[in-house]
């Protein structure tokens, strides 16, 4: 498993476009929002979180768009199937590498921006924890979406996996609200961590079945 993890990290490190692109776009989105409409700082504090949440949703979709299509197109998926007979390990490795290299930085950017908009320094790490847990959930769900529509364009992936991502967003929203009102943070974050772990454990099984169907 470690070997798969290092192989995936090796591949992603060399593909700057897939790694850095989403992060830059996220920064752009978070900057563009306040510029587009001139809002008073007071209002901004109140609903800036929804901008961060929506951009997180959008960017995590963008980041996982070609997570499998590259290996599918150039035939490496077939080679893996010969050795491994199952894609569970490679899928888990891919998702974790993407979360580590793209998800966590995204959460970092999100919490920095939330800090710039009225969140005190003490609460910024809380935001970071919640955002990174939710990137884990979102990456799993959207990886499933991109596995479904592996070479048929990403629109199909979104239509299929967005309904599954929305409950996660509601959970994230609930978590963010606890930070704003300052209580109940621990319970919600533990709940989210639980959901994230279950999803991370189960989703690769479904994705591996999907990939096998594609290879048929």
């Amino acid at each position, binding site marked *: 498993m470690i070997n798969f993890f290092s192989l995936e990290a*090796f591949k992603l490190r060399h593909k700057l476009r897939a790694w850095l692109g989403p992060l830059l776009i996220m920064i752009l989105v978070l900057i563009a929002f306040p510029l587009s409409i001139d809002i008073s700082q007071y209002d901004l504090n109140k609903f800036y979180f929804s901008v961060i949440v929506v951009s997180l949703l959008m960017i995590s979709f963008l980041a996982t768009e070609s997570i499998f299509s590259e290996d599918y197109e150039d*035939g490496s998926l077939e*080679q893996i199937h010969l050795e491994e007979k199952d894609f569970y390990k490679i899928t888990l490795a891919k998702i974790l590498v993407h979360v580590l290299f793209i998800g966590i930085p995204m959460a970092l950017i999100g919490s920095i921006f939330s800090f710039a908009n009225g969140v005190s320094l003490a609460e910024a790490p809380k935001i970071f924890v919640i955002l990174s847990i939710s990137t884990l959930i979102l990456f799993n769900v959207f990886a499933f979406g991109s596995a479904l529509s592996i070479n048929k364009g990403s629109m199909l992936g979104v239509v299929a996996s967005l309904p599954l991502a929305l409950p996660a967003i509601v959970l994230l929203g609930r978590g963010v609200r606890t930070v704003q009102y300052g209580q109940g943070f621990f319970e919600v974050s533990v709940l989210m961590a639980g959901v994230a772990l279950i999803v991370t454990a189960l989703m690769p099984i479904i994705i591996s079945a999907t990939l096998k169907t594609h*290879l048929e």
Partner: protein
Amino acid sequence: MQLVTADNLGYSINEKRLFHNLTFSLNSGSGLHIKGGNGSGKSTLLRIILGLTSPSKGGVEYCKPNLQVSYLGHKNAIKHYLTPMQNLELMFRSSALQNAMKWMNTLGLNKVQDELTANLSFGQQKKLALIRIFASQSDLIVLDEPFVGLDNASRDLLNEFLQKKLASDTSLILTSHIEPNILCSELVLSGETDD
């Protein structure tokens, strides 16, 4: 000793039948050359033997429990944004890597070792993909049109390598329009299958 046996294999896609009741068996150390026109299902048959695709009828059994297979299909399975050197690191772990490096020199790829694979010619990319076959220990080698795009020197190299492998009890299944000068039994897939 029998390595792979297939009994009345049949495959149809969207109710169109590609081939049906194919029965053959392959002993270790012997070769099987699958012939047939374009679209007669050669590649699909290979994929069924490899277990990638499940046949509509019949089945394939492997007589050896965990059979080591090395396969080269139409897709080269190499990463274009990496250099040949890095591609080898992806394919092989430490011990086999030395062996693969040796093959890279014999195939004359060491000149372009640090260039991006994307800028290599089709033939060079094919040679890089073939290293996966040369440098791996496997009981069964499956090749889909291996000779396409290779220059004569590499073709002879491949033929000689395959003969050596057949001698050392590894079996081979390949499809190729270019006649390989290896002695192997033949299986012809007729294009239109009558019911």
